[in-house]
């Protein structure tokens, strides 16, 4: 088995983008005989190559992963572990400071690594449309890729935090330089919001270090490792509640959970298509992942204390996000991207509700929903990107009757839309059902209210579908699309876009029919996770 071999696969999958960045920075600018800039071409294909190798590595990890080993709070059952001393120094008061380079994965991180690899690979293709400062764009893109992968692999809090923050700057530039008209505002808003969350995380991290004498996340999950007189020692103390809230808010901003979600619509609307794809596809998952990996198991007592509040926040996000998305059909300028952004708030609320239920089926559903939502929204944003590239507008009112003009596109889009609604036979259905199954046992009323939002979801999605694809094709789109954009030879989706969209559509349908390949990965770990949480939380019975 590969896990027992000495090949440091997690290091490779995480730091491979550095190789890409170096190559990209070294590519000299030059033009080929046709006058096209050769360097841009090379840079694009380097990015394709690097992310493809990452995808292969992710598949290797997936195939060699042993679902029987649970992980979570048991170091022995983590897989592909790499652990070495990184920073050691002697401090007189605290003892030794010991930061480790500690990577390892379990059933919670594997789906996320798979998701990151898939999304980063497919989002390279819409990036081909980027014309400005291509070198900088792909360097930042790969840096973002590195940081995200690192977050899902790290088991040392310091390392985790490093990756978590490393993601800020590339994201700032990607939105700020290559974004839409209000890019400056959106970029700094994203930056500041996320930083507010992460500085609280920093304080809690320092506190945890002083309490346990290590940055090891797994050791922090064991109450026995806390010194009794340290600030986080004991259980159910006020300071532990405060610390939990600090972590929770830090992660909730990323999710984003109501009321910390206001950065998301701005960031999505202004970001270029591929960055919206990554933002919705992977970045939002980091918040929920952080809760499962760090906030909940390290402070299970505090989670128990706030459990109902968290469930409520999840429910409010679901309903509020859906209403806002629906509102996109009523007010002012109807923006396609904003619609999807709010639907993300709604769908990620579902993840939180599933986690708050603290039942195995709800938690499995939540993690599966993270994966599905990643794939579905990535697809939706790429779909928006396709018409935006052709029409230079995302206004829902500007379109109509596209089904005749772009039949293939309409077909692909229907798959994504129905998956987002949660139609049976699509992966989104499975995860929603699991979440509701779990949540109903713990919080029946909240679940019923949330369940109603499914109807709202269907309403806004179908509405948008109807608006864009049926009815009369407006006069201005009667002829061919923007003739200045020569890269599009047909009116319908071109080959490059198909490469990105078709695999995602395939995954959605395949997992909708047969979800076991992903579900099997995590059941063991989720059961272990529930075991840790059980003594502290409310689990409804039925």
């Amino acid at each position, binding site marked *: 088995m590969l896990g027992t071999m000495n090949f440091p696969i997690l290091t490779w999958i995480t730091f491979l983008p550095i190789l890409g960045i170096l190559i990209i920075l070294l590519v000299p600018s030059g033009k080929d005989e046709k006058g096209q800039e050769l360097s841009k071409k090379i840079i694009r294909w380097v990015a394709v190559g690097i992310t493809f190798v990452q995808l292969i590595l992710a598949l290797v990890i997936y195939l060699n992963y042993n679902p029987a080993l649970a992980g979570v709070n048991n170091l022995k059952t983590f897989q592909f572990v790499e652990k070495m001393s*990184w*920073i*050691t*120094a*002697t*401090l*007189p*008061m*605290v003892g030794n*400071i010991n930061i480790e380079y500690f990577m390892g994965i379990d059933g919670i991180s594997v789906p996320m690594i798979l998701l990151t690899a898939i999304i980063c690979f497919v989002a390279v293709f819409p990036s081909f449309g980027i014309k*400005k*400062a291509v070198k900088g764009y792909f360097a930042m893109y790969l840096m973002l890729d590195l940081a995200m992968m690192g977050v899902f692999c790290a088991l040392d809090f310091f390392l985790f*935090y*490093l990756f978590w*923050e*490393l993601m*800020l*700057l590339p994201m*700032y*530039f990607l939105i*700020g*330089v290559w974004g839409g008209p209000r*890019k*400056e505002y959106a*970029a*700094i808003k994203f*930056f*500041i919001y996320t*930083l*507010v969350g992460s*500085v*609280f995380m*920093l*304080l809690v991290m*320092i*506190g945890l*270090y*002083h309490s346990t004498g290590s940055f090891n996340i797994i050791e922090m999950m064991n109450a026995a490792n806390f010194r009794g007189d340290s*600030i986080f020692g004991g259980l159910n103390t006020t*300071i532990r509640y*405060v610390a939990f809230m600090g972590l929770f808010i830090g992660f909730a901003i990323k999710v984003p959970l109501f009321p910390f979600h206001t950065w998301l619509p701005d960031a999505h609307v202004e970001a270029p298509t591929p960055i919206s794809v990554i933002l919705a596809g992977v970045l939002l998952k980091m918040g929920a992942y952080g809760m499962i990996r760090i906030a909940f198991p390290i402070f299970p007592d505090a989670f128990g204390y706030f459990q109902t509040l968290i469930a409520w926040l999840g429910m409010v996000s679901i309903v509020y996000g859906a209403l806002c998305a629906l509102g996109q059909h009523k007010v002012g300028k109807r923006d396609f991207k904003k619609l999807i952004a709010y639907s993300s708030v709604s769908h990620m609320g579902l993840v939180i509700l599933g986690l708050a239920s603290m039942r195995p089926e709800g938690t499995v559903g939540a993690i599966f929903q993270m994966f599905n939502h990643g794939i579905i929204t990535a697809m939706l944003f790429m779909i928006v990107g396709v018409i935006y590239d052709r029409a230079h507008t995302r206004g829902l009112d500007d379109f109509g009757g596209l089904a005749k003009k772009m039949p293939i596109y309409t077909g692909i889009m229907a798959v994504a839309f129905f998956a987002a609604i949660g139609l049976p036979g699509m992966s989104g259905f499975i995860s929603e059902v699991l979440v509701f199954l779990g949540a109903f046992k713990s919080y029946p009323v909240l679940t019923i209210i949330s369940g109603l939002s499914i109807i709202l979801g269907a309403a806004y999605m179908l509405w948008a579908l109807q608006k864009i694809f049926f009815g009369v094709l407006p006069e201005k789109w009667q002829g061919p699309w923007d003739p200045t954009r020569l890269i599009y030879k047909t009116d319908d989706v071109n080959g490059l876009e198909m490469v990105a969209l078709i695999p995602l559509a395939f995954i959605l349908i395949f997992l909708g029919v047969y979800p076991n390949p992903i579900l099997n990965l995590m059941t063991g770990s989720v059961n272990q996770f529930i075991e840790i949480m059980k003594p502290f939380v409310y689990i409804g019975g039925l």
Partner: protein
Amino acid sequence: MMDISDLIKSISLFKPETTLIVTFMLAMILDMAFKKSKNIAGYIAIAGLVIAGIFLFQQTGVNYKAFANLLVIDSFGQFMKFIVLMSSLIIIVFSFFSNELHNAHTKLGEYYTLIIGMTFGMFLLVGSANLIMIYVAIETMSISSYVLAGYTREVKRASEASLKYVIFGAVSSGIMIYGISILFGLTGSLNLFEINQFLSVNNVATLPLLLSGLMILSGFGYKISAVPFHFWTPDVYEGAPVTITAYLSVASKAAGFAVLLRFFKTGLLDSVPGTSEAWQLLGNIDWHYVIAVLAVLTMTLGNLVAVWQTNMKRLLAYSSIAHAGYLLMAVSVMNDNGVSAVLIYFVFYMLMNLGAFFVVQLIANKLDSENIDEYNGLGYRSPVLAVCMTVFLISLAGLPPTSGFIGKLYVFSSVINSGYIWLAIIGVLNSVVSLYYYAKIIRNMYLRDVESAKTKLVFSPVTIAIVLMLAIPSLLFGVYFTPIVEWANYSMNIFVGN
């Protein structure tokens, strides 16, 4: 009582300072002798600093009260002296490339000489354990710095800066010496060790002690530009030549923090055993809170006002006030963790702050302006410089993976370990605010005015190399900082010269 063997040993331990005096004189004389060579004094200054550095290095492990307890030679002082020395060295190198200075004067002999003079003053300040010595040292460094701040005397705002600096300096020295006189009246001694002994045996009235402490603090606060003693900072930083601004923001602060820490630990520490965690201070005054309040005021004011600045020098001036606040936070915990956090922070602060100022200097050389709008499109006009500036700014904001983050990590770590959670929360919120104005510069460099990319700015390879020499360690220490931490811990372990 000074006996001859003490004197001989003291003189031998005074070698770094002696070297600086010799350099001072040599630079002055040779500058007059070689009229044609513009930078001769600068080269001599560099040589002198290097030799002083070697002598300083030889003092590793020495713990001695020299000149009848006037000066203390210990590893804490050695660390801070290295910071001062390194900044002097870097500033002299910066000055070689300053158009501003070279346009104002045909010869820069006195300029380099005065930097050495100021370095000497700071060396004395870092080591002094006697209140009069502290006063003399502060004046030595101040007088040099007044002249340096107004060195480009044809520039109106430089003269204004210099004058303001003198007036504020005079006032704060006056207050400080008044405080010293009260403390002398209370304890009958000017020597910190004797004051400590007196206070640990006798009970003194709290109010006069508090008053004298606050007054002395105002003298130190002036040097480290802590609120409310900061009023001179923005104007002087804006008016002075960039090199001197950079110098004041690092070296002068280092010396100020050194004397502040020494004053508390040597003068007021209760040396009763069993008080290893937090220092017990004599005189029933809670100095923790006094300093903590100063820290909160300093960083909050610095950060909030910096947000509105459009002149880079002013912006960095307020940012340096904010950094003084972070450092004061570490001082306020009043234990050895705090001291080591201050030391660690200073190494990184020196690299990133000097780096940022050097970029400002280079841009001012080319564009003759320090306005933040001049940085529009810099990311395309001079990619390497802009990337380095981004590293410095990110580091100043305290984001990983830069060294500034490690500095902040240690500061917050010392604060949290002492249980001042509220202080840590104010601190991190401040660093969020600071990100806003640092990001404003990054925004201008990359997000604004991309068309200007056509007019490239070309800088000489030497200057780019210097920027890189500051930027690369700023990044590297962010992922591997063991040596700095070890060095800082070694230096704070043996702190009191007993």
